[in-house]
């Protein structure tokens, strides 16, 4: 097998007659940190949602490790066990305490005994620096805290890859930093990450590769230094000038 953890080959995705993704080819190696950026509606979120099959692709093939994403439920379950996801709107389960949010999938999906699940949960809550909030409910936490819990929840499943879908877009400015810190720590530890984000500072310091998407296509793909200092494509230049001028 190749060492690529994710392989997307000629992937198309349609919503009705609207083509959201066109001929996507992407390989992500173990330990790589990828940042995807692009204007809204460019298909960034759709791309990463295809990776754990929250969206079904229409053409092409997607492999996660040795599993191909098909209609087979077994494969999808196997992929979801390996791929964690962090959402823009946190999506913590509102009826469960923080620690329960972290335990439920461990117990149900990984069949881990309760005590051990709690231990793991507390370990990761400590890592995202909010162990003291364990018994509270999601609404009692700030947005930044909720997103850190959501990251901890994904980590509890010990995934190979974590997908971040605009993790800081719903946050107040003063809370963006604390979430990015947690993500940077993760990157340093060698976690394979794909982040859809507009945080260019994060992209510059953390990413191995930056991918720019527009109208459902991958337009440009480069190392961050090259991407920011010397963009090749006109659309990339325009986007960067818009996003960096203020």
């Amino acid at each position, binding site marked *: 097998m190749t060492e690529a953890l994710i392989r997307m080959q000629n992937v198309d995705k349609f919503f009705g007659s609207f083509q959201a993704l066109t001929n996507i080819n992407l390989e992500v190696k173990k330990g790589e940190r990828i940042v995807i950026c692009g204007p809204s509606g460019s298909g960034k979120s759709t791309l990463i949602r295809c990776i754990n099959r929250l969206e079904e692709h229409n053409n092409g093939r997607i492999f996660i490790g040795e599993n191909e994403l098909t209609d087979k439920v077994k494969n999808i379950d196997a992929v*979801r066990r390996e791929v964690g996801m962090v959402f823009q709107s946190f999506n913590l389960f509102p009826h469960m305490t923080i620690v329960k949010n972290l335990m439920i999938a461990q117990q149900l999906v990984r069949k881990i005994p309760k005590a051990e699940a709690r231990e793991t949960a507390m370990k990761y809550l400590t890592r995202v620096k909010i162990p003291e909030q364990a018994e509270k409910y999601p609404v009692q936490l700030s947005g930044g805290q909720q997103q850190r819990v959501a990251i901890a929840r994904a980590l509890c499943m010990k995934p190979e890859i974590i997908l971040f879908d605009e993790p800081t877009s719903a946050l107040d400015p003063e809370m963006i930093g604390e979430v990015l810190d947690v993500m940077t720590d993760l990157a340093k530890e060698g976690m394979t990450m794909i982040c859809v984000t507009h945080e260019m500072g994060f992209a510059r310091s953390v990413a191995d590769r930056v991918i720019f998407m527009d109208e459902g296509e991958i337009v440009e793909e480069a190392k961050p230094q090259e991407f920011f200092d010397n963009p090749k494509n006109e659309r990339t230049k325009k986007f960067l000038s818009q996003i960096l001028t203020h």
Partner: protein
Amino acid sequence: MEAVTGWWDDYFWGSMIVVQVFFFSLILMVLFGLIGAAMKLSNSKIAQKIAGGYTVVFRGTPEILVILLLYFGSAITLTAIAQIFNPEIKFLDVPPIWAGTIAIALIVGAYATETFRGAFQGVKPGSIEAARALGMSNLQTFIYIRIPEMWRLALPPFGNHMLSLIKDTALISIIGLNETLFVASQAISTTGKPFTMYLVVGAIYLGFSTIITLSVMGAEKFGERTTVGAR
């Protein structure tokens, strides 16, 4: 009020019948509501149509008409069948308590159908997606995520459905159920004090409504512990 003195125990037993009808119709109402909601949410066009017809008919028809139709309809059918075997039989009916219980459960069940359907669809898609992304199966997502979030959404309208049920029990007196309103009319025929006697009935129902309202409020508070808080 001294006119009521001799009638307290009749009122008490009348109230017990109200309670009995309430509990049985509550169980049936939940059942009808869940079946109706499941049919509306199913992929089958026929099931959707049937459930749609059920809610339109039972929400749009006066309650009293449903009760009378169900009671006399079943009585006519039963009598006709019985007369085939024994022409001597003049009248055979489903006991009013059962005809009435089923009738009001059918009526309020039509409202509950919409409540359950709305609650099912009202669960935030984000929670469901997060559960899927964590690898939880459809069944696990349903049991651990959907149901607990659903009941919180359904609770306030469900409290109103319970109030409708308790108030609709009064209508069953019209087909001869000896609940409180029926007791009152008997008391009036001997005492000639309709205002006093019906006022007692009103007070009894107000008591039942209060108990239901308070318990629903308590349950809502319990459910709300996760939605309000220091922010």
